[in-house]
């Protein structure tokens, strides 16, 4: 059991506050009158409701079906009547409502028919689909659908399976209590994981501040028919982060932008392993979990809680105290504040931490960064948080990405040690969301540009086609006009056939000039006799002289045209 451990970079040691809640025994929380079950409790597509308002459902009955591969089903945590399907308050920092199914429980807690799965006899893909339909998702916090993680994919096996019992966040003890009381069940779940992943090495990492849990897990591991190495890892926040636990136990780092399975390692939380054991060996879908209720309450402790139970009922159970300043879901380092305490416990709810001004004094106002690099010293991702802060603050998101902003795991170590009290993680979240928004915008803009460019091309093409059409039409018209005009004048008649034969621009111009001349001549021919009627003989002579000069000029003017016409 003396495994060589590796030290991950950075980390902090905030006060643990574990002893508040892990000294009281685990209790099952009583059945509440109302259960609110969100359809989006996991990463991926939200479940689709498969029940109707007014329908009676049984405990463990699927009420929301998984939608797609990366999704998980949700189930009725107890028997009762569906009273509403619609938006309701959910535990999210935004306070925005999400689609939930509300049940009015009937107190009978009547189970739907369920039976253990003969998992070894089942095809792996069928077993995974079954687990997806039983709503199994990661209970360590990310709530990623476990069926997806249990698929070794093209590699056909995942040599190393790590079970995460780190629980490095201060105040939280639900994994600790689970390991102490149900170590055997956890390892039964591990056996299923091992079966699906084909793992040959199984490691359980537990922080060394949980000696009882380590002892219980080691004892349970003795009775297995496969080897499980239960390893005590140094208690340093965030030793329970998946990437950090992998490094501590194996000395390997998950390549940036890749998954741990790319290096043949898969990590599951102990709670997930327990849920898997309940599903496989008892046929029970994921309808309850362990929740630590601690902080500013009279009796901090752990409860086994039905998913959908309103948080305030648990706070009441643990003994509400005056002077509370709200509650967090999760721990003080990465938890999120709850918009109100009516919100239900979901699969991700590992802890309800009630705040008070004494336990969590308001954070002091931030001062400018003095580049002391304490943040860099404690960053487990080995980032330069002071530089990322500068880039995020000045909106230099390109540089932020160059400096590996997306390798930040938002563990909060940097903010915790900052002597200027700068909420650094906030700046990183902001920068990340800005970059995502910009990428989305850029994609939209690219699409719009493509559309615009095509439109421009289309307009130009249409214009060209129209112009060509017009030109052809005009030419035809001109040729017709030239013909029509030339006939009465009897002068351009020789030119007309050639114009029709050679429809070039120069020819068209010539044709126009010729036609105009012809028109003028025709006009003159018609007018001259009229104007010279009944004139005195002197004037008549004058006119004749003028006419003669004009005729000469006309003759001269026509010559170049005629000479050209003669050429072809």
């Amino acid at each position, binding site marked *: 059991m003396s495994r060589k451990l590796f030290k991950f970079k950075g980390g*902090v040691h905030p006060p643990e506050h574990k002893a508040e809640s892990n000294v009281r025994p685990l209790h099952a929380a009583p059945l509440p009158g109302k259960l609110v079950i969100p359809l989006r409790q996991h990463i991926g597509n939200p479940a689709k409701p498969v029940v109707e308002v007014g329908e009676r459902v049984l405990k463990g009955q699927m009420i929301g079906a998984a939608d797609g591969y990366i999704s998980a089903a949700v189930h009725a945590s107890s028997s009762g009547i569906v009273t509403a399907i619609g938006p309701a308050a959910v535990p999210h920092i935004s306070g925005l409502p999400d689609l939930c199914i509300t049940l009015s429980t009937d107190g009978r807690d009547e189970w739907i028919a369920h039976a253990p799965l003969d998992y070894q006899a089942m095809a792996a893909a069928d077993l995974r689909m079954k687990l997806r339909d039983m709503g199994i998702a990661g209970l360590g916090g990310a709530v990623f659908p476990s069926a997806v993680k249990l698929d070794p994919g093209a590699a056909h096996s995942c040599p190393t399976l790590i079970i995460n019992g780190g629980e490095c966040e201060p105040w939280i003890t639900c994994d600790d209590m689970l390991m102490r009381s149900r170590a055997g069940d956890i390892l039964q779940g591990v056996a299923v994981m091992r079966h699906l992943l084909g793992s040959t090495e199984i490691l359980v990492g537990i922080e060394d501040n949980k000696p009882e849990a380590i002892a219980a897990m080691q004892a349970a591991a003795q009775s297995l028919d496969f080897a499980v190495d239960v390893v005590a890892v140094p208690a340093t926040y965030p030793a329970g982060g998946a990437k950090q636990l992998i490094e501590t136990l194996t000395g390997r780092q998950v*390549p940036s932008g890749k998954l741990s399975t790319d290096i043949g390692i898969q990590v599951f939380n102990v709670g997930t392993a327990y849920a898997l054991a309940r599903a496989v060996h008892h046929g029970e879908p994921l309808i309850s979990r362990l929740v630590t209720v601690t902080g500013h309450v009279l009796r901090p402790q752990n409860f086994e809680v039905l998913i959908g139970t309103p948080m305030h009922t648990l706070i009441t159970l643990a003994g509400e105290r005056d002077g509370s300043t709200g509650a967090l879901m999760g721990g*003080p380092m990465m938890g999120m504040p709850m918009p109100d305490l009516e919100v239900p416990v979901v699969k991700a709810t590992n802890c309800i931490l009630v705040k008070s001004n004494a336990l969590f004094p308001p954070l002091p106002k931030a001062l400018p960064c003095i*580049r*002391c690099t304490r943040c860099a010293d404690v960053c*487990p991702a080995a980032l330069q948080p*002071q530089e990322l802060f500068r880039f995020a603050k000045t909106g230099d998101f390109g540089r932020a990405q160059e400096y590996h902003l997306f390798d930040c795991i938002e563990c909060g170590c940097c903010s*915790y040690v900052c002597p200027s009290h700068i909420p650094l993680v906030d700046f990183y979240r902001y920068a990340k969301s800005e970059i995502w928004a910009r990428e989305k915008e850029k994609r939209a803009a690219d699409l719009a540009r493509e559309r615009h460019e095509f439109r421009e091309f289309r307009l130009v093409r249409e214009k060209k086609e129209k112009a060509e059409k017009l030109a052809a039409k005009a030419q035809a018209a001109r040729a017709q006009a030239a013909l029509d005009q030339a006939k009465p004048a009897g002068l351009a008649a020789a030119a007309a056939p050639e114009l029709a034969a050679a429809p070039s621009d120069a020819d068209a111009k010539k044709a126009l000039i010729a036609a105009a001349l012809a028109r003028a001549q025709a006009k003159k021919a018609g007018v001259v006799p009229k104007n010279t009627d009944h004139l005195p003989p002197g004037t008549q002579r004058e006119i004749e002289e003028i006419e003669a000069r004009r005729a000469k000029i006309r003759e001269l003017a026509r010559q170049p045209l005629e000479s050209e016409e003669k050429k072809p």
Partner: protein
Amino acid sequence: MPSPFILDRSSVTQVMAWVLAALLPGVAAYVWLFGPAILVTLALATVTALAAEAAMLKARGYPARPFLTDLSAIVTAWLLALSLPALAPWWLIVTGTLFAIVVAKHLYGGLGQNIFNPAMVGYAVLIVSFPVQMTQWSGPLALTETSLTLAQSATVIFGGDAPKATLDAVTMATPLDALRTGLLQQLTVDEIMTQPIFGQFGGAGFEWLAAAFLLGGLLLWALRIISWQVPLAFLAGIWLAAGFLHFFDAGRFGAPWFHLFAPSVMLGAFFIATDPVSGATTPRGKLIFGFGAGLLTIIIRTWGGYPDGVAFAILLMNLSVPLIDQHTQPRVYGTSGRGKEPPA
């Protein structure tokens, strides 16, 4: 308000307070070895710095309270005061402090924004503009015939009628000045070192002042207020550069121990080059920054126009910080270097 919801008990004020506390052994040694004049200088610089800080905060529209209580102005004032001759006239102290706070700190954007160490900018302005007044160092009490009381020191500093003979009797050239002068007179280092101003391995008195600064510096390191990289690299730069020169021509170049135990080196290595705002931030960058400052100090002392080079060396390295930082980014988790992945 998003996570995290807890903070370590640290603050800028706490950091600065520790820096001031770590300077106290040096101040005590200073008074013990050179007389109480430094206390007047420190007080005057402190008052000037706070007044200038308050005025600049008001002018820039910043709240006075959080920035005055962060103690950063007092740290600047003390570092400058400890770099000045203890019997420098009052206007020299005031001018240097004003320049440090007003120009070097606030005109660059205030706390956290200055690219140069403000105290060293103040010092550089004074040594360039008033080289004569910058030589009024009080000699070690062990070597002077008479000494000044606190009141007499204040009188001298504020330009009162201190008898010229008294002033001459208590001021003397620093060891670095003496070395420089001696070398200009074509004396060998060994000949120069026979003068009483030189002590066991540094200057008489000065070596113990340097030791006191070293003690304070080690305290800051033990408390992790400063990292080890900058001071160690700084001292290594001094030792290697001075040692290299001394090895080739011991007659013309001072011994490395002598250079190390000039008080400005210990003050510079542990208190000034470690200023986080104007220094390098990456671990390797800190090593380069410190080593470069040490190297430049010896180069300036040996071939430059001024007897000491710590201030200019640090200012030159301040200039190089963005370049150093950019090229010394550490390997990020899951990458084999900047932007690359490790071989799986």
